[in-house]
């Protein structure tokens, strides 16, 4: 398998520089390309100094929430009384997102180097890299890379474990991931306590996304000011981000962009727009959990944390799902709801019952048996499912429902009025 496309001239190639270059996977090849220099630099610095650089760079979590990475590291106890843990969230399961997979497939040592630097910064003895169960190829590559890195003594006294997930979407939620590593059912925990106070095995823990950590060596090597300079719009969103584009575009794939890049250019210049003869209808900009944008909204959106929020959605994981005018939005939204109903961990009442009920109503509408009150009911259920549970899975189910009904009400009403051929869903 080769990397499917050469970088587009408008991309800012930092993380993806060696995507497609099989030699960069090896320890030797990585060192030849300047790998692990940042780690040596970082190890000469006090942990706090490393954190300060990352803080200064403006790097924010790339997993979805966009929390400032350096600030997160400072939450670890100042005085070290217990063992510290680092967790690397490589359980990339957000529908429409496939950026961490490429980082692990092509540049496993970038992740390992970032992991080593972060472990130094937070004074962790142990790091767990939690890899999504279905990621067989990244798993093999990461295992090999870890073996080589250990043989080369990259981690010093720090123990690094690869932990393989078993297929649950919810294990990408940070506290569910920790439960899963501990051998428990992957249920999110109530917060507080936050991981920095009591995380993995009840000890102070920092958890970062793969892409976040892969960016850290570049920041150490090239300086916070350089990274901060990578900004096209809001100064609170700095650096580059991988966007995974899928769906109805001519050239889907991963694109690395400086934050603040217009979504319109990503969709049309890089991905070539909708397939021949069709037009883009809608776009989910940040993985399946965020509100849907219409074409007009998408074309006016700048891809950074603030820009996408201003457009009424969220940057999320950067998984851009594109729908053209052939897409049946009602069907697509039903598929999303069904996914969340399947993946709900069953802890919170609203999520366990709400996601399933929502799915049943969506299926009923598609089958041409919807009631006129169904849309109001869906909106009311979504309201009851938002902001009331332990984690945001039920909010994520509600987001596409609410935005979908708001923006594509006509398509729903066509089913309700019997103007559209019923779709049997099984």
């Amino acid at each position, binding site marked *: 398998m080769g990397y499917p496309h050469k970088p587009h001239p408008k991309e800012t190639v930092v993380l993806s520089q060696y995507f497609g270059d099989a030699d960069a996977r090896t320890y030797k090849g990585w060192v030849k390309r300047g790998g692990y220099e940042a780690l040596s630099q970082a190890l000469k610095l006090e942990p706090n100094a490393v954190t300060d650089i990352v803080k200064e760079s403006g790097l924010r979590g790339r997993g979805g929430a966009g929390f400032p990475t350096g600030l997160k590291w400072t939450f670890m106890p100042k005085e070290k009384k217990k063992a510290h843990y680092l967790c690397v969230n490589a359980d990339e399961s957000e529908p429409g997102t496939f950026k961490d997979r490429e980082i692990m497939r092509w540049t496993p040592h970038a992740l390992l180097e970032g992991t080593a630097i972060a472990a130094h910064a937070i004074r962790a003895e142990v790091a767990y890299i939690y890899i999504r169960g279905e990621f067989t190829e990244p798993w093999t590559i990461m295992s090999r890379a870890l073996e080589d890195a250990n043989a080369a003594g990259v981690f010093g006294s720090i123990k690094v474990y690869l932990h393989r997930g078993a297929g649950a979407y919810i294990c990408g939620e940070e506290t569910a991931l920790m439960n899963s590593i501990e051998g428990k059912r992957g249920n999110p925990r*109530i917060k507080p306590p936050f991981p920095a106070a009591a995380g993995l095995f009840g000890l102070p823990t920092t958890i970062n996304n793969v892409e976040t950590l892969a960016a850290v060596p570049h920041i150490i090597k090239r300086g916070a000011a350089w990274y901060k300079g990578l900004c096209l719009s809001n100064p609170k969103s700095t650096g580059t981000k991988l966007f995974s584009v899928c769906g109805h575009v001519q050239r889907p794939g991963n694109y690395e962009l400086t934050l603040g890049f217009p979504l319109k250019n990503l969709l049309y210049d890089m991905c070539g727009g909708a397939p021949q003869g069709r037009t883009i209808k809608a776009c989910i900009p940040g993985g399946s959990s965020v509100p849907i944008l219409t074409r007009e909204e998408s074309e006016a959106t700048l891809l950074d944390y603030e820009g996408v929020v201003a457009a009424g959605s969220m940057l999320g994981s950067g998984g851009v799902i594109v729908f053209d005018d052939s897409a049946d939005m009602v069907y697509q939204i039903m598929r999303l709801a069904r996914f969340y109903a399947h993946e709900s*961990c069953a802890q*919170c*009442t609203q999520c366990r019952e709400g996601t399933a*009920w929502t799915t049943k109503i969506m299926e*009923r509408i598609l089958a041409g048996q919807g009631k006129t009150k169904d849309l109001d009911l869906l909106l009311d259920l979504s309201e009851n499912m938002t902001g009331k*549970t332990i984690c945001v899975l039920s909010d994520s189910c509600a987001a596409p429902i609410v935005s979908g009904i708001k923006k594509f009400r006509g398509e729903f009403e066509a089913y309700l009025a019997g103007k559209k051929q019923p779709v049997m869903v099984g």
Partner: protein
Amino acid sequence: MADGLINLTIDGAPVSVPPGTLVIEAAKQAGVLVPHYCYHPGLPVAGVCRMCLVEIEKAPKLAIACATTVTEGMVVKTQTAPAKDARQGVLEFLLINHPLDCPICDQAGECELQDFVFQEGQARTRYAEFAKRFNPVEDFGPDVLYVPNRCILCTRCVRFMDDVAKEPVLNVSERGDRAFIGIHPEARLDHPWAGNVVDLCPVGSLLSKDFLHKARAWELDKTASICTGCSQGCNITLDTRDEVVVRVRPRPNLEVNRYFICDHGRMHYKWMNRGDRIEAPLVRRDGELKATDWDEALARVQGILRGASGKAVALVSAGASSEALALVKRLLSGFSWTGAFQIVMGEEAPLAGVPNLALRAERAPNAKGAENLGYTREYTQALETAKSAAVVLVLDDSECAVQTNGALIYLGTVLGEDAACRSAEVILPIANVAEEEGTFTNRDGRDQRYYQAKPAPGMAQPAAWVLSELINAMGLAEAAR
């Protein structure tokens, strides 16, 4: 307000509570019961039912009262529109898959789902035309049935087995709306304390086979009592219907049994309903026991006691009240007195997650009380002494293998076909623990009262009453002071 306490207001009422108190507990102090399912003070917090959502001033969204600790100046509002709407939403979700088979459900009448839906829910469902989730009833253990259709997945039972019993045989199986409480395929819910999951279950999902379809909750009279199953002294409630004890449930006492009782204690009630009781005083006339009235029987005992001197032996049950034991001692105060009890021993079964709580090896409630009053465990020796004693008094020890040349007086509830006490001069019918009021002293020296749950059969009277009558008649009441 006292120092070191956190001050907050709940629905406008000011309360002061120790730091670390949960909002749901602080609310109780303000007289506000925040509706909840997964929270239980005897279990670790889960925060999953989301029923106790309340509004806290300055918080960005609603918070669950069971997992939020109080802070100084906190303003909690449980009755605002957003909080009530959120809880109504939870109730609607909980009911969509609930069978609403209350008419045939044992929990009806003491069901938290019924109570809170009645209090805060809506009369209609919007979950029309969809089938409800169905799973068959499962046999979990010797006394526990699981009815998954009624389950609201609060996980109290799972947490009890995990964290209190420390025998993690239950879990939540499957995900989403397919979830149910699962049991380890090779395990049974037969832990000696497993029955507590039935009490903990807020709905009728975990049922006691023993109590199955036996009574409706609203028909039951409840009486505070003390478990007679062992020397732990667990606080219990005796539930009676039509003067029959039908169920034993734990009564919270944080110092003794927290919120729990063991299965041995839970099942230790059937003998309280025995039909083969001594119902009238019996006196020996022409070599045979004849039923009589209290006046004659008591006069007979007086005659025996006044006419005898020297040694007297009391062979007593360690399940007799301290009052009765003290009065026996006083009644025999004119004699050279020996008192002893025998005790049935069994296996000790601790509840791992609660310090100093176990089904104790000593299977009687008042051994400590008897010892405090001077009774000894030297039962065999006392039996030996009894042979040559002038008077032997047996108190509710129906198995007592007594032999004596003196006069035998038996105060008891039952008398077996071959009981040694059939040779007594006088037999006085007494009430059992469910039929009288009294005091037990548990193994830690804690004196605890129990109360009368049902009337004694026939002419039977509490032992303390019988003994007091005798003491008064003999003029010993003042003499002993």
